[in-house]
């Protein structure tokens, strides 16, 4: 039987990790992920979770230890944010190319300098190309649910890719939300024990992580690409199974009032809640506004987005990161790429919001919708606008 509890989202995450019966946790504390790992430490200390918690001396070692543990056949978990993600970045790319199904919760936080402990997406965007499957969740419930989903997807023998569950630092990690916890007993066979396809085991020696050559590296990358794209089918399968068992149906792209929308706001992550409230309000005022929440970022749901967004006149893509000297917000540039070469693309406006935890209000989203409607009239593409910038 499920329990509905008001709890800090970090703890909802740790609960799920505990119920997954992970074997090895290797993590280094960094704000705002600390509550996740502290809670897991307590669970191990109390004997509620039978796992080895490696108290590594840096995030780089955290991910390296996860690689070793996963290669030996363990179900592995780690968590980090911002500077930690950047420090372990070298190994993050290696983990996916070695096909190690590690699950990592990233408490998205802005990158220095200046130092900031507050939430935005610059850390994960800097690692877009790493080859991990990336989920973006926006509520305590979806955080809890996606830990199970992440393990089921990552460890599937047709996938075997490490998976990131991205949750906004502070704005999600430290808030208290009502969560219907799934008990271990109710998981049933949704999450079978990890059965490694490749494993470090003296009974069957293999060499993992050999040096590649120009003669085969291209083929290795092609193989990686193919498995990344193919994982989408399994992700959909897992979401469907989850929905059948637990009644919550997730999709790669979640829509809200998009059927007849002329203006669609596109967001990802925790601020989607505020966006939804804004769209609700604008609909009551008779405005034809809709909201799209992107839940799956890698592999990128280009086809879904084209299908859902094409009917609108203008889409307002809200990014929580900037790519300096580039085409603006990373999410927006990916969406623009998804439309390039296809006829019937809507006008795409780009807004940068909520950098380093800057509050984003319902009124901000209303302003975004208005601005988008102004921009589409001028037809010329416009550079991105930063919401709330003091000039």
């Amino acid at each position, binding site marked *: 039987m499920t329990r509905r509890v008001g709890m800090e989202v970090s703890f909802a995450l740790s609960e799920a990790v505990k119920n997954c019966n992970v074997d090895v946790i290797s993590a280094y504390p960094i704000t705002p992920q600390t509550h996740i790992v502290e809670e897991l430490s307590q669970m191990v200390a109390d004997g509620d979770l039978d796992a080895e918690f490696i108290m590594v001396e840096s995030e780089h070692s955290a991910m390296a230890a996860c690689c070793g543990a996963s290669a030996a056949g363990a179900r592995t978990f780690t968590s980090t944010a911002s500077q930690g993600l950047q420090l372990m970045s070298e190994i993050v790319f290696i983990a996916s190319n070695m096909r190690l199904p590690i699950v990592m919760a990233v408490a998205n936080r802005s990158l220095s300098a200046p130092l900031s402990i507050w939430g935005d997406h610059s850390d994960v965007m800097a690692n877009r190309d790493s080859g991990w499957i990336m989920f973006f969740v926006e509520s305590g419930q979806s955080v809890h649910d996606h830990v199970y989903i992440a393990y089921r997807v990552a460890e599937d023998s047709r996938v075997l890719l490490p998976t990131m569950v991205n949750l906004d630092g502070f704005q999600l990690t430290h808030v208290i939300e009502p969560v219907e916890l799934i008990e271990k007993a109710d998981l049933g066979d949704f999450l079978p024990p990890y059965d490694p396809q*490749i494993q470090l085991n003296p009974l069957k020696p293999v060499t993992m992580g050999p040096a590649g050559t120009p*003669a085969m590296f291209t083929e*290795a990358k092609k193989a990686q690409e193919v498995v990344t794209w193919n994982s989408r089918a399994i992700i959909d399968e897992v979401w469907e199974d989850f929905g059948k068992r637990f009644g919550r149906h997730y999709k790669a792209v979640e829509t809200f009032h998009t059927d007849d929308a002329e203006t669609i706001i596109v967001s990802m992550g925790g601020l989607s809640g505020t966006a939804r409230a804004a769209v609700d309000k604008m609909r009551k005022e008779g405005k034809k506004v809709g909201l799209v929440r992107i839940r799956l970022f890698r592999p990128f749901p280009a086809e879904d987005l084209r299908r859902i967004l094409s009917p609108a006149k203008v889409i307002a893509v809200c990014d929580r990161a900037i790519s300096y000297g580039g085409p603006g917000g990373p999410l927006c540039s990916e969406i623009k790429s998804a439309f390039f070469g296809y006829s019937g693309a809507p006008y795409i406006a780009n807004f940068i919001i909520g950098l380093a935890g800057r509050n984003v209000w319902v009124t901000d989203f209303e302003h975004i919708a208005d601005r988008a409607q102004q921009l589409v009239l001028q037809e010329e593409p416009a550079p991105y606008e930063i919401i709330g910038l003091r000039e």
Partner: protein
Amino acid sequence: MAQSDKPRWQELEIGCIVTDPGSTRYYKTGDWASMVPVTDPERCARCGLCWVFCPDMARIRDQRTGAFDVNEFYCKGCGICARECPTNAITMQEVTD
């Protein structure tokens, strides 16, 4: 079965792992040698030092006489065996072919 060094992408193992333990044994490092060790079986004391010190496991033992000799498939011609042999039974000679 030796894995191909020019595989099609579909032929690669998961994570590019190498599944044949010790598969470098197919590689003829003997082609590198410009000198090879020649052992005088009369002087060989059968001590096995040349076998201990060979970085390339290129020393084999004649089962009948017990004397040690070179495995030309792997010998790179470094000359450690010749130098270490306590009875000076090994001399390095230039490869002529």
